[in-house]
């Protein structure tokens, strides 16, 4: 399960089968290496790069006002249309939700990662496994379990009523959406932080304590800077995918407050306005690139500060 700790292995000296020192075989060898890479390159070029380029092009195309679809041409209209209150509202709401989810996942994920990383080494794999199991469980199953939990007559309502609180079904509600988003993305937030924390020498914690650092200072001066890269990845891995989610707002939010993902699906499948949907997809892609840049920039700032 090297999903969380995807580290590139160091290049071992190529000792390919039948390798003989010398120029000839070595160069043939690397040629064979490129040959082996062909299928993957074909998949990436034909099924990722070309399609995304097509969508980028389509986002500037005109759409038939009556029939929808893509009728070619070039216009900026799709992008200006996104500024229309109808779409702009969804955009700002999605960004707010994604940011909120990223922050909640980060705080909870950091605590869990710290807890796992500071347990005895023998117990860490078991605890990590406990985080992995929900992560590998079907996304939809993880989502609709919350309908049972928070819905009419479910455990939440029963417990609230026992405590004398007058509660009714929480589905659909904003709260249910936030809860299931957190549940869906929490494991993803834990992995990278744990991976970077595992490398921190436990004696640093003792040293910080010996030097009189309190709990907060230990984290601010030792743990947070040293796990900064994991924190960055964690924010990235929760913020961007939240924008694309379309199942949760429908099932737990009753479809009242759609996220960008819902809008893209609707534009493509129901309204048949591909150019506008393409423009919206490009916005999501650019936001992804921006958040990568922001996270990378923040990391650079942090490491420079440390060096100074």
């Amino acid at each position, binding site marked *: 399960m*090297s*999903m969380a700790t995807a580290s*590139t*292995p*160091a*290049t*071992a*000296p*190529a*000792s*390919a*089968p*039948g390798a003989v020192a010398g120029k000839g075989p070595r160069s043939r*060898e*690397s040629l064979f*290496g490129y040959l082996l*890479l062909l*299928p*993957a*390159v074909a*998949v*990436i070029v034909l*099924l*990722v790069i070309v399609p*995304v380029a*097509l969508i980028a092009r389509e986002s500037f195309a005109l759409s038939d006002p009556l029939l929808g679809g893509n009728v070619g041409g070039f216009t900026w209209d799709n992008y200006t249309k996104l500024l229309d209150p109808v779409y702009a509202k969804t955009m700002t709401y999605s960004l707010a939700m994604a940011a909120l989810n990223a922050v909640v996942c980060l705080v909870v994920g950091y*605590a869990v990662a*710290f*807890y*796992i990383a500071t347990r005895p080494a023998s117990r860490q794999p078991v605890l990590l496994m*406990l985080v992995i*199991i929900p992560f590998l*469980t079907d*996304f*939809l*199953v*993880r989502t*609709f*379990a919350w309908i*049972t*939990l928070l819905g009419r007559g*479910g455990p939440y309502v029963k417990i609230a009523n026992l405590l004398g609180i007058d509660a009714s079904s929480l589905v659909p509600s904003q709260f249910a959406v936030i809860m299931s988003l957190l*549940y869906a993305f*929490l494991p993803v937030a834990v992995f990278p932080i744990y991976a970077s924390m595992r490398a921190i020498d436990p004696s640093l*914690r003792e040293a910080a304590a010996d030097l009189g650092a*309190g709990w907060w200072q230990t984290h601010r001066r030792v743990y947070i800077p040293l796990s900064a890269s994991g924190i960055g990845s964690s924010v990235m891995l929760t913020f*961007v*995918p939240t924008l*694309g989610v*379309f*199942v949760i707002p429908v*099932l737990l939010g009753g479809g009242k407050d759609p996220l960008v*993902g819902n809008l*893209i*699906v609707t534009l*493509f499948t129901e309204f048949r306005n*591909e150019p506008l949907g*393409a423009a919206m997809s490009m916005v999501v*892609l650019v936001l*992804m690139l921006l958040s990568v840049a922001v996270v990378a920039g923040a990391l650079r700032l942090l490491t420079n500060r440390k060096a100074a």
Partner: protein
Amino acid sequence: MDTAMDRVVSWFARLVFVFLYIPIVALVVYSFNASEVSYRFTGLTTHWYGELFHDERLLETLRTSAVVGLLAGLAATAIGFLTSFALVRFRVKGRAFFLGAILIPLIVPEIVLGVSLLSVFSSAGIPNGLLTLVLGHIVITLPLATLVQMGAMAALDPSLSEAATDLGATGWITFRRVLFPLLRPSVLAAFLLSFTTSFSNIVISTFTSGVGTTTLPLRIYSTLKTGLTPEMNALGTLLVLFTLLVILVVGVQQMRRILASTN
């Protein structure tokens, strides 16, 4: 040396572990609820599981998902194997570039990949169906399959193949008799991971499935839109069991590998 605050964090983390399992436990418990409505618990039954096996349309989507998962999983595992073999065992210029390219689908939001695929297939005149589903699922499973197998290949002891060569084995024999047997657990792990990822995918499938090739998650989603039924809880429980089974197989295999590498 734990401060009070450390204890608070520890307790909070333990609560989060409980939080991670509450929905799964609730799902399992409710799947055995005899009552038609979720808000009354009237006893235990396995009735809903039986209902599942009579739901023809559901079984149809299950078959589609299994076929797509199998094809996409096999393709992604095979391509991932070749890729990781090239990147780990060969001197390839621009390794970082190639690796970066293969990881693109992990970074690009899935919804963008989905609409892009829809656009490219309709431009190419390929109707949505089994082929488009499989191709779409290969895209998202290839990075995972590659990463899993790269890790295993990097961990291989290079002296093993050298020894085989010294003993007179040709390249192909070395690969077949020494390297591949050692890599088999990671190949299986990559396949199972790809299969489960494909099997539970919703976003890509939304844009690449056609009439008559609805996948299981899409069917579940459209059923849930009209309301949660007890059958869905039963189905969810079976899917959780399936996940545990996969983890068990991969876990045991990984343990074996670790044990084998220490000897």
